[in-house]
């Protein structure tokens, strides 16, 4: 299904606001065909409505996953149940609004697939965010998952890429216990795992330093571990040179998270009722983008009509 990008239209408010925006644009198109310019205040009004309406009446647009995002989804989907996945929260509260949705949705996917997940972070301030995500996703949505057996939180260790340099060959040396001081050897998730090399994949979130790049250079490349990353939108273009050899997938900003959430909902319909922050936050963005593109089209329509008319007059 290539079309039908609208999924949740059940709400009357959504229908009305979309009808208002669509009808207004059609009326403006008619005026543009008469070579009339649109007043800037009308444009402002459209922007205001297209941002406010999706906030009042949650409106989500189904995203088609781009190959860079789809690669991550497919990898997690194709791994057999019980595979070991490491998710690293390498961001601070300032970056969180843009990147935490990615961490959450990948966690959801790993949980529903029954993978065993190791959570950690390289930012001291990431610890609190990690705990928050665990409560929000694992404790609330997957209450039957057991700490230590299905997942483990090994928390934060100082040392930036130095930490990676050690865990690429030995986890226990850096993380002798998890955050609850359970010794390494009694954590079920770690059974048979000595180092990052034994993992099935690593997903790291955060475009700062240390971040995705450091995971690639210190763990992915030397340890031959598949690494995927999620970064803020502005950092994403800088990550593409590593794709697909060193990074098998990239998620950029809220849009990346929204694509993943869409993909997850397609495969696991039970997530339709779960909050998808990426899709929710993309609502106003997408609508406003489309309105802006519509105005670019309108501008060109009235410009071309005007030019034709001038030419005819000259003759």
């Amino acid at each position, binding site marked *: 299904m290539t079309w039908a990008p609208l999924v949740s239209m059940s709400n009357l408010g959504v229908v009305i606001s979309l009808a208002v925006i669509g009808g207004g644009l059609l009326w403006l198109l008619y005026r543009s065909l008469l070579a009339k310019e649109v007043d800037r205040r009308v444009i402002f009004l459209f*922007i205001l409505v297209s941002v406010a309406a999706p906030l009042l009446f949650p409106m989500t647009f*189904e995203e088609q996953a781009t*190959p860079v995002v789809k690669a991550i989804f497919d990898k997690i989907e194709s791994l057999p149940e019980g595979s070991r996945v490491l998710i690293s929260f390498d961001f601070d509260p300032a970056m969180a609004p843009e990147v935490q949705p990615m961490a959450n949705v990948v966690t959801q996917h790993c949980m529903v697939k029954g993978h065993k997940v190791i959570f950690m972070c390289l930012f001291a301030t990431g610890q609190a965010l990690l705990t928050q995500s665990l409560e929000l996703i694992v404790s609330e949505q997957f209450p039957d998952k057991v700490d230590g057996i299905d997942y483990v939180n090994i928390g934060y260790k100082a040392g930036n890429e130095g930490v990676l340099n050690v865990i690429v060959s030995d986890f226990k040396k850096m993380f002798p216990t998890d955050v609850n001081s359970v010794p390494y050897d009694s954590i079920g998730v770690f059974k048979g795992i000595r180092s990052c090399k034994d993992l099935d994949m690593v997903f790291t979130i955060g475009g700062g330093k240390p971040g995705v790049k450091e995971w690639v250079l210190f763990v992915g490349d030397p340890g031959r571990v598949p690494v995927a990353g999620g970064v803020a939108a502005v950092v994403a*273009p800088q990550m593409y*040179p590593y794709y697909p050899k060193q990074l098998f997938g990239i998620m950029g900003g809220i849009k990346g998270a929204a694509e993943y959430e869409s993909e997850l909902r397609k495969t696991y319909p039970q997530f339709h009722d779960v909050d998808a922050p990426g899709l929710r936050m993309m609502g106003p*963005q997408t609508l406003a983008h489309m309105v802006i593109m519509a105005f670019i089209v309108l501008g*060109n329509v009235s410009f071309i009509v005007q030019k034709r008319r001038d030419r005819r007059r000259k003759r």
Partner: protein
Amino acid sequence: MRREVPLAITFFVGTLLIISVFLPPAEGLGEDFTVFFDIIAVFAFFLGGGNLVRVHLTKLSRRKEDWPYSIVTLLGFALMLVVGLFKLGNPGGIAASPTTDGSYFQSIFDSVLLPLGATMYSLLAFFVASASYRAFRAKNREATILLVAAFIILLGRTPFGMALTGFIPEQFDLFQVPNLAVWIMNFPNLAGQRAIMIGIGLGVVSMSLRLILGIERTYLGGDER
């Protein structure tokens, strides 16, 4: 004297700072001079603040247009200055940072400056739309290139980009709009940015030399004429 001394000062300071980069014993000079600048800038606040107060007092006393608003400015200025300089209501007293949570200074910042600044900033969402409407028109070849590049990138950021071009097979997926958008960002966009930056580097070097040599002196004694 009035012209020669300032020219000599500019020449001396400028040359000193350029040479200091190559002399380890003098390498710290750049940092020191940056702090010097900050200190002088704080002294200049007397001039700026004085000017602000004077402008609004004049407006007030002469009952110029919109004079009542000058009272708002003057009161806001005086209030914030007193609250900040005396660290009123600061839980940490004089030793704490003026922006400590709970201080009056920080409270005013949170409920006045923060919303004002953020809203002013958010006006961009509207202006970005009105500028796109007007500027992205295929008036000539250059404007068309601008339009096409902007449109591809915009399309790549919405689900429609993938919906419209998702059918393109993997061997040709460069032409899927999101991929094309990334390619444009990584190559032609980068090339343009670099050309601009190289030009800027040279422009700054040349302008700095003109200033240090005293060829450019509009800000001092003007032309030799």
